């Protein structure tokens, strides 16, 4: 009220409160700020009491990382099951199809369990929105899981081979999208470690899915198959998956700069590291298991190689293969848990939101 007077008629020259001049009398502040509106972003990073800018995802572990892992395992297993059926590998086909259906069901259970209102899960199919990867994924899963179920039932009972073949084909067609859409799902958020990694994330997921399916195939055939030759495609798929997963993850974390920190530190970093180690061990073990029989014949000259050969062929070779398969499955799961926790950590710290946005603004001004 510095410019108003109280008169008999009331207030003269009164300014409504919304026209007040903040800091009008605050000499030091006004002097300092005049004409120096900063155009270059400050070097230091500021936040509101260290509070995160975005709200932390309400998704919880093990539901959501489990959902990501199981969806990948299911999708890639359907490919393995279809291939095994086409190439006459019955044990691999049964393992892969049963695994695909089981993982698909569990994946949906995990998704429903994580809902705030699980009884309303059917609302997921109320609309179809391409702008929502979760909507697209719900529709994909609702087509995929029944197909995988019919394929598994026919493979396990040996009945209705034609229907089984059709369902196997359907599941194999829907499998890759089921394995890949979850990458778009988590990337389509404001969570820095997830969003910024969107170009590579689907390849990490596709690789991780192949790793898991290869691992399950190795595990199943080592327990069920009459001939070790049945495991060969599973081993190849696991090898392919592990390479793709590790290469895509390495490329992603290299490209996104400081936002990649949660992938290298804390819980996320520990899981990612475990995923790498398990993938390498799984691949090495599965190759050693495969090298078993020829090594045992060629290795007659060396006593040490002889005993190694005995370990890797026959029943013990099966054990090595089974353990390698389990390691590949665990590697895939560890990667998913690592990505999940890295995203959570990047949401909790405002610097991952503010600093890249500041840099983007600075680039635009420059």
């Amino acid at each position, binding site marked *: 009220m510095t410019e108003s007077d109280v008169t008999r008629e009331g207030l003269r020259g009164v300014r409504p*409160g*919304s*026209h*007040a001049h*903040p800091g*009008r009398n605050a*000499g*030091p*502040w006004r002097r*300092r*700020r*005049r*004409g120096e*509106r900063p155009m270059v972003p400050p070097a230091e990073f500021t936040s509101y*009491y260290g*509070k995160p*800018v*975005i*709200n*932390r*995802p*309400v998704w919880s572990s093990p539901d959501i990382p489990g959902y990501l892992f199981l969806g990948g395992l299911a999708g890639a297993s359907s*490919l*393995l099951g279809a291939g095994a059926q086409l*190439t006459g590998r019955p044990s691999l086909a049964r393992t892969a199809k049963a695994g695909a259906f089981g993982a698909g069901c569990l994946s949906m259970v995990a998704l429903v369990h*994580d*809902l*705030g*209102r699980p009884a*309303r899960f059917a*609302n*997921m199919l*109320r*609309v179809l*929105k*391409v*702008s929502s*990867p*979760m909507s697209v994924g719900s529709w994909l899963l609702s087509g995929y899981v029944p197909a995988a179920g019919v394929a598994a039932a026919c493979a396990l009972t040996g009945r209705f081979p034609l229907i089984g073949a059709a369902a196997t084909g359907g599941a194999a067609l829907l*499998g*890759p*999208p089921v*394995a*890949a859409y979850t990458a778009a*799902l988590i*990337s*389509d*958020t*404001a969570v820095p470690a997830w969003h910024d990694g*969107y170009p590579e994330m*689907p390849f990490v997921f*596709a690789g991780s899915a192949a790793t898991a399916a290869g691992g399950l195939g190795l595990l199943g055939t080592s327990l069920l198959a009459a001939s070790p030759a049945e495991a*060969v*495609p*599973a081993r190849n798929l696991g090898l392919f998956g592990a390479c*793709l997963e590790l290469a895509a993850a390495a490329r992603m974390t290299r490209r996104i700069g400081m936002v990649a920190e949660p992938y290298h530190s804390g819980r996320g970093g520990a899981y990612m590291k475990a995923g790498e180690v398990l993938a390498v061990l799984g691949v090495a073990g599965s190759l050693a298991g495969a090298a078993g029989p020829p090594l045992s014949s060629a290795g007659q000259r060396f006593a040490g190689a002889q005993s190694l050969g005995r370990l890797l062929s026959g029943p013990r070779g099966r054990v090595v293969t089974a353990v390698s398969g389990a390691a590949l499955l665990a590697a895939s799961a560890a990667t998913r848990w690592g990505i999940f926790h890295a995203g959570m950590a990047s*949401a909790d710290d*405002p610097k991952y939101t503010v600093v890249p*946005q500041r840099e*983007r603004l600075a680039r635009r001004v420059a």
Partner: protein
Amino acid sequence: MTSLLDMLTADGDPASAGGYADHPPRMGFFTDTSVCIGCKACEVACKEWNHVPEDGLNLTGMSYDNSAGLGAGTWRHVAFIERSVASGGRPPQTPPSTGGSIPPYPPGGDEPPEPALDIRWLMASDVCKHCTHAACLDVCPTGSLFRTEFGTVVVQEDICNGCGYCVPACPYGVIDRREDDGRVWKCTLCYDRLGAGMEPACAKACPTDSIQFGPLDELRERAARRVGQLHESGVAAARLYGEDPADGVGGDGAFFLLLDEPEVYGLPPDPVVTTTDLPAMWRRAGAAAGTLAAGAVAAFAVAALGRRR
């Protein structure tokens, strides 16, 4: 499919993009933080009108802030920023409260106490931005979130199944899930009051007109005048936030006049709606799915070659 249309329409008329042929003008908030006195009448009025349940009576240690941030139980949040401007240049960051020991005063022991005016006290009432391109609305898989005829974004609580996708999608950290209830909640811009021709409860309760409600076009004009007035009177730091239809979210339906950088108030300096990149994400996901299928084919082809050998 309204949200896809929404993405394609850049004219800042979300209600038309949402399928309303004939609709009232887009309504919004202009929150002028330069006249906010931190009374929290907006927080209280919002809670009372919307029956927002109590979500903790806390002393956060963050100045007079005791609601900490927007969430399922806080749809208006008044931020309090106490910053010393005595050190010259940029004011130092107020250290986050650890709830532990009380720092010595005066800071540094024998330094002379600084004049009172060198403590700057900023207050700002934050709210849902009702974005032109709203990420929460785009990613909602049930269609529970929808665009109203006023161009605002509202949750239909009878449809929300609590999937939580909107929570990390929001670039401002507005919407959140209520744990005992399972559904997500946020500001509705008092959709019920708007329908009855009334202004939202927070704007009604604001004693200094820091919260102004009205047609967005009008508010933008008023805000431009106000920021000009402040610049003339020497408050060079005054700037508008979220008023630009060319920004990453297509402009906010609720925008602000700030006296410092957005992040000082807990706002993102350059928010972008995540679905901007979704077409690219779908393309990459498609390529990855193809790679996976090709890998599986290769796995069997290599096995067949090995068998033949």
